[in-house]
């Protein structure tokens, strides 16, 4: 098992492999859109996504600038994602729609499932691999490694893991790609880079 690349996106910065890639201006009204523009990518679907899916999309877009995903076949990458507050941001939108605005919106409702973000990644990359979404109290590296082992036992070549959170208090996308090859897995390094590296 080998960590190929890690990346974390916070409202103020992007960190790749432990090094700060980008500092995000604090006066940006829509910081995710700012990051999207600064990455020079063209993917109009981004603008329709909810914040959770946008974070995941930005995460994989940053990773794409670091590594070449085309070396994997369309079934070879497993998606293992988790967070604490599920699809809170979109749930809240839909909740406010029907309780206060007295309306319902299909485009808000479809995002009220956290695994929509893995669907967005699969659509973006045309990946047909395994995918799973967990609700967890906190980021737990051991838990992710366990899930990666299960998929590697079934012959999956690589796993894209991610902790993507979007709620009232915080927004974060932390992703790491693990390959099914020999190597020393430095769990502490992943932890340090992805989680402790929070907003200063």
């Amino acid at each position, binding site marked *: 098992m080998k960590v190929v690349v890690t990346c974390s996106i916070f409202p103020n910065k992007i960190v790749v492999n432990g090094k700060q890639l980008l500092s995000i201006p604090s006066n940006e009204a829509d910081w995710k859109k700012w990051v999207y523009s600064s990455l020079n990518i063209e993917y109009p679907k981004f603008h329709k996504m909810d914040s959770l899916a946008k974070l995941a999309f930005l995460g994989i877009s940053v990773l794409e600038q670091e590594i070449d995903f085309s070396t994997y076949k369309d079934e070879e990458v497993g998606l293992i994602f988790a967070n604490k507050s*599920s699809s809170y941001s979109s749930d809240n939108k839909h909740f406010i729609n*029907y309780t206060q605005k007295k309306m319902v919106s299909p485009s808000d409702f479809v995002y009220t499932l956290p695994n929509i973000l893995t669907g967005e990644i699969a659509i973006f*990359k045309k990946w047909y691999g395994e995918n799973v979404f967990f609700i967890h109290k906190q980021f737990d590296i051991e838990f992710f490694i366990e899930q990666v082992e299960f998929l590697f036992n079934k012959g999956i070549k690589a796993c894209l893991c991610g902790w993507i959170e979007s709620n009232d208090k915080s927004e974060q996308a932390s992703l790491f790609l693990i390959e099914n090859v020999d190597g020393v897995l430095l769990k502490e390094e992943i932890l340090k880079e992805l989680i402790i590296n929070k907003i200063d």
Partner: protein
Amino acid sequence: MDTNLKNVYLSYGALVTPLGNTVEENFAALQEGKSGIKKYTNSGFTNENWPLAKIEQISENRFDTLLRASFIELNQKVPRTIINSSNTLVIISTTKANIDVFPNDTFESGIEILKNELGVVNEPIIVSNACISGVVAINLAADYIRSEKFKDVIVIGIDVISDFVVYGFQSLYAISEQAAKPFDKERTGITLGEGVAIVLLSSEKRNSEFSVKYLNGSSSNDANHISGPSRTGEGLVRSIQKTLVRSHINKDQIDFISAHGTGTIYNDEMESIAFDRLTLNSKPINSLKGYFGHTLGAAGVIETIVCLLSMEHNLIFKSLGYSSIGTSKILNLITDTSQTQVNIVLKTASGFGGGNASLILIKD
């Protein structure tokens, strides 16, 4: 030894649905061809009278009450020595959990009840993968047993009917005005349901009279659309293919398919295309959504329990609500509940986020 082939046994845990409070009560209702679906006045966002498969005894605190209701049967079917063992893991499969308490944490109460009232030792794991959650959770349970991390895994599939979900599906124009008619010519959409289902997966036989083994399973994404089913059934085809290979089963050996069959035009069409591509058209197949409605995160577990019933009694249940084929590809839908040898079952699920999952069970 191939760790993916270590024995994993399934047994009944509990089943609480509008059709009954135990596996046996649900079995009796299925044999009688009863539906748990009724129309409810003002259940819609603008006061429509949607049909729902609702558990009428529950009047408030739906999620917690429903979860607790499953413990009665669970305690009869699964010994305390397993439930309260440090070698046992609990996996919860749910989409919206206790959504009625939103914006408070919707997942907390279930975990607390399991720890404090049922006395489970290990921190439960929650799978929230839309409508495929139940099948994904059972596949994961088998992974845990084959890895020898746990001897038993209790999988709990649970979701309740809420304004949140009913109004949401209404906004998608996905709710049927009549009880759902999966795969039928007249189908117009889903009927939402609620329930809790529990299966036990174990490294050893936990039931001496009747025994079913889990062979293998998989998931696969459509990579097509977040809420619209694939037009080619690609994800479902790939998931079934992977599951067959991992199970070392030839598709001809399958006796019966428990499909997802929500009752929407596009989902059922997608499934028919996938089964056709795999030349599984002639296999007896049903959807149980006409009995239980679509119970979202509970569906895969409820339907797996019904697969166990089919295997135990060699009885395949008619696809309630179906009378004539309404998909472009012909399937062999079960129109009469009937006796037949059921040794190997394929269970499938598909859902939002482009998810597809499947698993294969074999009579021991």
